[in-house]
């Protein structure tokens, strides 16, 4: 699966100066999120102001990489043809331990995933770039 993912010809992120720290950290195998200096809440995806209080003092921090599966879908007919060689594959909504929800790829594991499963960050090469994807947390 992971070899197949590395060889995909699929669109990568459309990085902007504001989001560049997120993708740089992702490329290094990490997961960065923002935290608001005014209300203290974690923010994802990266923004210019906090969507909760509109404070503009957002600081980058390393996320724990722990999350919970809020929902998932095993995609059999991908919306982008570049993903066909990887199908079926599973995408999920990951509720990060810090609070925000991100969409990500869920790697195949020892059993099919269920809503509510504990997940852990599993940086993986997709189409030649390392992205923050997740897998079942065997320790949970």
């Amino acid at each position: 699966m992971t070899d197949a993912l590395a060889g995909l010809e699929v669109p990568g992120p459309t990085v902007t100066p504001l989001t560049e720290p997120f993708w740089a950290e992702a490329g290094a195998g990490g997961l960065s999120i923002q935290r608001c200096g005014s209300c203290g809440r974690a923010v994802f995806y990266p923004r210019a102001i906090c969507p909760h209080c509109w404070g503009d003092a957002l600081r980058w921090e390393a996320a724990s990489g722990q999350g919970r599966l809020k929902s998932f879908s095993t995609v059999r007919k991908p919306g982008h043809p570049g993903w066909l060689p990887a199908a079926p594959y599973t995408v999920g909504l990951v509720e990060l331990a810090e609070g925000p929800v991100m969409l990500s790829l869920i790697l195949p594991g020892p059993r099919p995933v269920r809503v509510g499963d504990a997940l852990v960050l599993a940086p993986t090469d997709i189409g030649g770039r390392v992205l923050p994807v997740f897998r079942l947390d065997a320790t949970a």
Partner: protein
Amino acid sequence: MKGQAAIVGVGELKPVRRTGGVTTLELIARVAREAALDAGLEPSGIDGLLVGPQVGLTPQHVPATVAEYLGLKPTMANVVDLGGASGAGMVWRAAAAIDAGMCDAVLCVLANHRDDAAPRSPNRNPIREFDVPFGASGANVSYALLMQAHMAAYGCKAEDYARIAAAARANAQRNPDAIFYGKPSSVEDVLASPMVAEPLHLLEIVMPVAGGEAVIVASAARARRSPRPPVHLLGAGEKVTHRAVSQASSLTSGPLKPAMARAFGQAGLGARDVDLLSLYDCYTIMVATTLEDAGLCPPGGFGAFVRDNGLGFDGTAPLNTHGGQLGFGQPDLAGGMTHVVEAVRQLRGEAHGRQVRNARTALVTGNGATMGEATALVLGAAA
């Protein structure tokens, strides 16, 4: 909202899978002409224009481009960009503009051409940056995620959702214009259709088609002179919350809940009072959530509602009597307006072969993005 502006004309193009070089502007012109003929209006009587975005065609100056093509010189013009909620969103905006004295008769029009080589849209936005790189392109995955969450929360069964698609196909058998006319599907057929993005089967997803829909909203004074029975806007509600499914505050209840509550509040009616449910149905899960958000059944209870009610024109809960978009086809943004046009037909008593007896009121919903753009209308027949 009550009883002032009214819908005095509608137009609809028969959906087709391919348009072979016909432009969107041509389709807009044809369906606008139909609506004007239906309303008994000369083009010079139309002084308001609401259009949808023209993706890949006219990125800016859309109302001016359409007005010029149609020879209109509107005193109110705008783009309504609410995805599948655009059609319903146009209706209350037209009524509000008329009530504000800005215009007297508003053309609300949506149409789309459909050619083989559709260009991929050059998106540069958060959903493109943070969803697409993980293999989540297009709406199917988003609604599959909503459906999986709904199933996990309430234990609803695949056949409950499939029943919504089968009912839409059954209703389409009463609409010769529907893309699936002559092609009914049973619950078993739906469940046997290929899985596209689990748990969504192919037949739980609308088929993309080309088409066009138009309605004309006019002042009370003009409606009194209309050759067709006017259909009144009794209430409207709207709520816009998010674009990407990851940013939804709930996966099992949407912004249609407060939008419908506002619309019913303005109309002085409840969900159980209406004679027709004309509910946006891009996917089966959208109807399930809308029935629950309307309060027609408890959260997670849609399965019993669709099992225990007849959803046909002669049933106990007529739902999408034109076949819905699941049975009629989805002409892009115009798909949402099919729910408005069918409600007008029913409330005029002109739904030949599928007329709901004594139809006096209808709930129309529109939905866009990933259950993040919502408009609800309560429509009423002429007194």
